[in-house]
């Protein structure tokens, strides 16, 4: 008879969510998590929170560049062009 892993509890499920979203969970673990999520609204909400955090991270824009830094780099660029 094939050994089946016991169902996950919530405390275990939350530790798998990031790897699940990365697509890096082994197939058996992924299925265990999917079974748990299908039956657990709270862990499904946790997954949604994590998805929202990752999506919002992707919308964080780079810090505005200090104009002095940019000016200094453009000066270096011109110096190099004159040398070469």
């Amino acid at each position, binding site marked *: 008879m094939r050994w089946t892993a016991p169902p996950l*509890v*919530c*405390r*275990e499920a*939350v*530790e798998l*969510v*990031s*790897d699940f979203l*990365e697509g*890096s969970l082994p197939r058996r673990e992924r299925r265990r998590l999917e079974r748990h999520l299908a039956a657990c*609204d*709270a*862990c499904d*909400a*946790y997954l*949604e*929170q*994590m998805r*929202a*955090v*990752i999506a*919002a*991270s*992707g*919308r*964080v824009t*780079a*810090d505005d*560049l200090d104009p002095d*830094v*940019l000016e*200094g*780099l*453009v000066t*270096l*660029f*011109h110096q*190099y*062009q004159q040398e070469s």
Partner: protein
Amino acid sequence: MEDAELLDRLLGGDETAFTELVRRYHSTLVRVARYYVGTEVLAEDVAQDTWVAVVRGLERFERRSSFKTWLLRICANRARTTAVREHRTIPADPSPAVATVASRRFDEGGMWVDPPVPFTESVEFRSDSGALVTAVRAAISSLGEPQRSVVTLRDVEGLSSDDVASLLGLSVGNVRVILHRGRARVRDIVESSTKGNEQ
């Protein structure tokens, strides 16, 4: 405009192409450098040296990797050299197994007693998705290393886990563990801020 097109223009001596690339990537360079070196000032120096090296070496860039990858590798190599010179210890690899959600939120059987609520249902984020971005940005800034660099490079900059691992000198497995903990911490901080506002 794609990086490749900007590179073509840069090779022709176009200054605006250079400033556009600097605008796109300078803060990422500083982030990578800061992981290795001790201060923001040193990280800024490493990033600026990287641009000089890029302009000097541009004609030798064979485009077998993306410009972004090439640029970040130059920066990481320079930052490592600087870190060795200043005898700096790089942030340690993760310690094994720590719970990322407070144990008081679960009962003895490991089920939620204080379950999370989707951010889309919280008052401050429901009507203003920009507020969530602001909260996430602040939470990422408050992370310690190596979580801050890993989360920034993977989730903010969108680099692959393989690229993050190679730039920060970590194994892909460790990147996954650090990313998991960093994301969980960001989620926790953002969630706490919504609960604080409800009271």
